[in-house]
């Protein structure tokens, strides 16, 4: 293998490129990204960048010298427009064709948008974050559509900047589908305490010139609107390629989409054998882990390893750091195993079937979390995990 192409120059693509070099690959390595900036970090966009605490110079994932050392053919500001699997060639937006022996697809996602004639912000790129930051300040009325983690983080930051914030959410309890109703209520409570107007059970129909119009016709007035209602995988360029696209690029447990073609990061919909489930994970740590795993499997097909991570995410809201390990979605039970929800210092554990599938922690020390993470990785039965790790919780 002497020509490897990585499409997507964010966390997953960069991790793949680095891992290839680390593993000794010294052939041609092309990294293509549709944004003009060198690979940068996204989680701070809704946190330190939006708040103004950080300037953009803190965001690059690697220094120019470290990037140089990778010996990349780095092509920024150019997207991929097509893939010819049989000819092993990717077509780029500037009309050029890049032949490859190995391909890593790491094209990520883009924000879902709402219809309407009014202007709405989204929050995915550095430019998005800077444009929104410019418009926030004391007394400014910000309506955020969607109370998921991104919307909730932006709400917390905007309150800190003195904005009047209204958070609109279609579900009865924000984030309940992701982390359970109990934790969703804790987070909602924190937002209300900090003066956010949280309206649940409301559906937004469109963005208008003066705010957003709800499905029932009510106009919610705003100076600025942020739409944070999830993402769409960037897979259009793969449409006629013969690869399977279904909520992202479908990959097997090795993160492979076809021989010599691997998916990584937000765009990859792969089978995680640790949980026996297909998943597509838009978390920062998954991007790095999957980029590295894809690179290794691409380089050493004879020694491929299944990509079976314990997913991890964190979210900063006000003075709370929320951390979760595992695969919480579709859980059957949530139990507080340490601390107290009302004090916002707690760990909850998630049961899926008869297994411990995840934990979520607010305000507890790292050493309290580690044994639980290890138990998730070891596929520990729920009853055993609770008995040995949380005897005081008194469940089971």
């Amino acid at each position, binding site marked *: 293998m002497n020509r490897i192409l990585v499409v997507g120059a964010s966390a997953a693509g960069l991790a793949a490129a680095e891992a290839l070099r680390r593993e000794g690959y010294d052939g041609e390595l092309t990294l293509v990204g549709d944004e003009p900036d060198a690979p940068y*970090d996204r989680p701070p966009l809704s946190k330190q960048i939006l708040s103004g605490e950080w300037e953009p110079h803190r965001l690059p994932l690697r*220094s120019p010298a470290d990037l140089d050392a990778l010996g990349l053919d780095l092509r920024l500001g150019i997207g991929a427009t097509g893939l010819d699997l049989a000819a092993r060639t990717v077509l780029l937006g500037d009309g050029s064709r890049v032949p490859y022996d190995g391909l890593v697809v790491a094209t990520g996602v883009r924000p879902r948008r709402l219809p309407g004639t009014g202007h709405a912000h989204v929050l995915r790129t550095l430019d998005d974050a800077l444009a929104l930051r410019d418009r926030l300040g004391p007394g400014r009325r910000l309506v955020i559509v969607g109370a998921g983690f991104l919307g909730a983080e932006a709400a917390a930051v905007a309150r800190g900047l003195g904005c009047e914030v209204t958070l609109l959410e279609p579900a009865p309890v924000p984030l309940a589908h992701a982390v359970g109703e109990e934790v969703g209520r804790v987070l909602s409570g924190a937002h209300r305490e900090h003066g956010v107007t949280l309206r649940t059970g409301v559906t937004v129909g469109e963005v208008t010139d003066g705010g957003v119009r709800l499905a029932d016709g009510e106009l919610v007035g705003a100076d600025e609107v942020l739409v944070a209602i999830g993402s769409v995988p960037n897979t259009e360029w793969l449409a006629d390629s013969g690869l399977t696209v279904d909520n992202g690029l479908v990959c097997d447990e090795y993160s492979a989409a076809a021989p010599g073609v691997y998916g990584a990061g937000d765009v990859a919909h792969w089978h995680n054998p640790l949980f026996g489930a297909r998943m597509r994970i838009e978390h920062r*740590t998954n991007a*790095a882990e999957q980029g590295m795993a894809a690179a290794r499997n691409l380089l050493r097909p004879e020694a491929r390893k299944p990509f079976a991570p314990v997913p*991890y995410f*964190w979210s900063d809201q006000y003075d709370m750091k929320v951390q979760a390990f595992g695969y919480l979605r579709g859980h059957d039970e949530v139990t507080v195993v340490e601390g107290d929800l009302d004090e916002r210092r707690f760990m909850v554990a998630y049961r899926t079937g008869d297994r411990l599938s995840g934990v979520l922690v607010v305000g507890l020390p790292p050493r309290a979390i580690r044994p639980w*993470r290890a138990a998730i990785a070891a596929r520990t039965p729920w009853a055993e995990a609770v008995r040995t790790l949380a005897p005081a919780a008194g469940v089971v």
Partner: protein
Amino acid sequence: MHVEVDEPKCVSAGLCVMSAPDVFDQRDDDGVVILLDSDPDTALDEEVREAAGLCPAAAIRLVEK
């Protein structure tokens, strides 16, 4: 190799501690990284590179000697 950490960037994920427990630890109160050994033994190179690659905040910088 020489290891540097950028504390203000750390997001307390703790993945470095899982990858290279002899080189990294976390503060109890906020989980921020503690660098136990800025010039670890070469036997730990692989672990340390894994930790740096996984760090979700790009807060670990390695300087190859």
